[in-house]
């Protein structure tokens, strides 16, 4: 049911008047593709009004002592649920400025949620399992996507004209782990952008 709602919302968002597609490929200093980098585009003309919806669920599942997905993009104001599908309990926390919270010990098939009201990157950890690491990128633009295993992604229907392209990655060597680039988005059609970043 929720999946169906998400699909409907996405189809609405993909109906701008003048928009182009931006294909982005993120590589590191060595030219290797960087996966799970979050790309956001802020058109100079401003983001379209209205609620922002993404075609994926606002949830981070804890399964096999890991956060899944490891990186989740959510719009500002979204409430993210943290269902625990492991047999053990977890203690999810975040010391990030964007959202400092703590969901103390919750067990199997229990779900907690948290509403992210500030844009920014949130690093998730589990106080019980140090190896667990996850990120939630709270964005204030609908034009956001994360790179796949080949470092590539496609942001569709971006408002044409000048825009700021921001690449975030938890290991990106920069303040707040972000790099910002200027971008000319075509009114229609598609541009491909290769972004090289330096990782820690």
């Amino acid at each position, binding site marked *: 049911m929720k999946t169906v709602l998400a699909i409907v919302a996405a189809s609405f968002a993909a109906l701008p008047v003048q928009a182009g597609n931006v294909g982005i490929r993120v590589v590191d200093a060595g030219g290797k593709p960087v996966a799970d980098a979050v790309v956001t585009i802020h058109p100079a003309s401003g983001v379209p009004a209205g609620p922002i919806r993404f075609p994926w669920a606002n949830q981070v599942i804890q399964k096999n002592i890991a956060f899944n997905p490891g990186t989740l993009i959510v719009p500002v104001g979204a409430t993210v649920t943290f269902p625990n599908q492991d047999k053990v309990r977890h203690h999810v926390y975040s*010391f990030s400025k964007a959202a*400092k919270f703590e969901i103390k010990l919750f067990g199997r098939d229990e779900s907690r949620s948290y509403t992210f009201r500030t844009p920014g990157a949130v*690093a*998730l*950890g589990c106080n019980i399992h140090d190896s667990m*690491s996850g990120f939630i990128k709270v964005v204030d633009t609908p034009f956001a996507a994360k790179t796949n295993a080949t470092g590539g992604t496609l942001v569709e229907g971006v408002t044409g004209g000048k825009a700021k392209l921001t690449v975030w990655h938890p290991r990106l060597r920069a303040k707040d782990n972000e790099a910002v680039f200027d971008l000319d988005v075509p009114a229609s059609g598609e541009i491909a952008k290769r972004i090289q970043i330096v990782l*820690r």
Partner: protein
Amino acid sequence: MAGGISGLRRGAERLGASLSAKMTLFYAGLFALAAALILLGAQTGISAYAERMVASEMAAGAKVFDRVTTMRYAQLGDAGRVLAADFGFREAAATGDAPTIASALDSLKGRLDLDQAFFVDIDGNLTGFAGALPAGEAETLRAALEGGADRGVLRIGDLRFNAAAAPVEAPMTIGWVVFGNALDGGEMAALSKLSAIDLAPRIVPASDLPADMALGTASEIDASGERMLVQASPIASFRSDDPQALLLEYSLTHALAQYAPMLWSLLICGIVGVMMAAAGSWLLAKRITRPIRALDAAARRVAQGDYAQVAVETRDELGTLADSFNRMVDDIGERERQITHMALHDGLTGLANRTLLREHLAMTVARPSIDRKQALFCLDLDNFKVVNDTLGHPTGDALLCEIARRLSDFAGDGFVARLGGDEFALVIDDSQRPLDRIAHELIQTVASPCIVNGHRIVPGTSVGISILGADGIDSVTLVKNADLALYRAKHDGRGGYRFFEAEMDAEAQKRRQMELDLHDAIAEGQLSLMFQPLFDLNQGRVSAFEALLRWHHPTRGLVSPVDFIPLAEDTGLIIPIGEWVIREACRVAKGWPDHVRVAVNVSPVQFRNPGLNTVILQALSETGLPPNRLELEITESLFIDNAETTLASLHSLRALGVRVALDDFGTGYSSLSYLRSFPFDKIKIDRSFIIDLLNSEGATAIIKSITTLAEALGMETTAEGVESAGQMDILREQGCSHIQGYYFSKPVTEDAVAAMLDGGAEARRAANG
């Protein structure tokens, strides 16, 4: 001065040459060599050991440092990780809550006794660092931490720390906690105490080390005359761009100096040992050489005739040598006594010999006695040769021993010597009885009959006496004079004694001179032959000439054969003279008519010479004279000695055809057995019978019997010394076949013979008339 130096040198040579010195030098040298080797070995060993020991201490020190720091890093790291894992601290770190972070670090610093505890965030901001941080250090530190540095020596400014870091994760790394302890002098001193020796550990930047220095191993360097062993070991450095090294060093010179007392005591022990070895071997050598020197000294004394004995002190080889030496000395002494005895004594009788007599005489003469006279009595045995020849040498020797015994008994305190053969000598003084009485009794003592080897023998002797001092003062003169007296005593008739008189010496001198002259006579042709005819009464002609020797001495004139023939016989000169006579007679007779023979007198001495037959044969063959024209005249005395040899010789001559006549028949023994034993061709009746012929009836009877006997035996007869017609008539009446004498003719020269033979008719007439 020079003498002193050469004396020193001689002393040194003797020392160098002596066995003791050699042994001492050898063993002391050997020991010194051994001690030097030990010292060298000890020094080398100690040096190697010390080096190895220091090196191993260094290796151990480096390892200890490693261990200690590793432990320290582990502690620091653990503490850091505990803090970094703390939820509250992580929260404070993540939210940048600096006061909370600082207070937490401060509290831990006090609890864990740390010198440094601070937090470095991901952007290189430090929180809680004690002291001032030099510019730029923060970023380097951050870079190092981001590069993964988590432990090691951390250098910040001039300070060094043992530091460990732990990342703070929320869950991404948001920074690092760094804990550190200062690596100051105290810390290094504490580390140094962990080694047995002070290795003076220091930590230096690896870049400060010499480029060629090998890391991890000890190497030797020369630091201003001191041998230093240095080892640089790499240690964990916090910042990989700032490598650090642990430098350990130790002075080998100092290490070796610690062994110096040991080496010194070894050296002293070696020197003392060498001295002890020298002293010991010197004493041992002395002990060994003392008996050798004793033997040497004894050998020198033995060489000088002193039969020294060596004391046998030990039972070892030297003792055995000394024992053998003593026995050898005894044996040599005994043998020398034997040799001396043999040299001075007669082997057969044990009496003193001529040499000892000479010594005794010399000694006695040198100590003349005032109140008594000493005399030398020389004697020999009559006819001793006959005893030897007829009864054999063993009996002769036994007789000599018997005589020696008698003489020894007789002499009493006197001295008895055997001079050789049958000659003896006695030296007796006149303290008991007069010398002539002694001589008389001596003859009687020797002459008493004795039985030797079953044979009864009556020895006989004559004695010659010379008086010591009066008749000579040296042994040679005394013996010579006694011999002269003996010669005279024998000449006077056997069984008598004579004292030496000065004339005897003169006579002897004369004889000696004549002997020398006679020698020259043969060589210088002073000898000549005269010939006296033998007249054959039956045939009325000269049948032969008797060759008679004449000596015309250049100063003494004509010398009588009676004087020089006995001398020639005594000296053996009769041999060459007789040979000359035979050759000369044969040569002359060759020129005579065939019926005329030549008669030659042959002495017994000539017959004793084995060459006589050869001489006769050569004379005959050289001259070509038929053997039957040579007539040898021999006397009975020829048969007294060696009758058999003489007979054999005569028979062989006669077999050749040489005629043999018996001369001087009627004198001496005139044994008829001679006539039977040899077939003489002729008997010559001695002139003594002819002289008596006119005065004595008996003489005629004797002539008659001789001629009758000769006729019966088929021998001719010749009467010698016929001086008158009366004698000739009687002889003719009594059947004598030949005459010889002044009545018919004196001996004539060779030339006169020829004249006589030419005038043979006249001679015949004279004979017949």
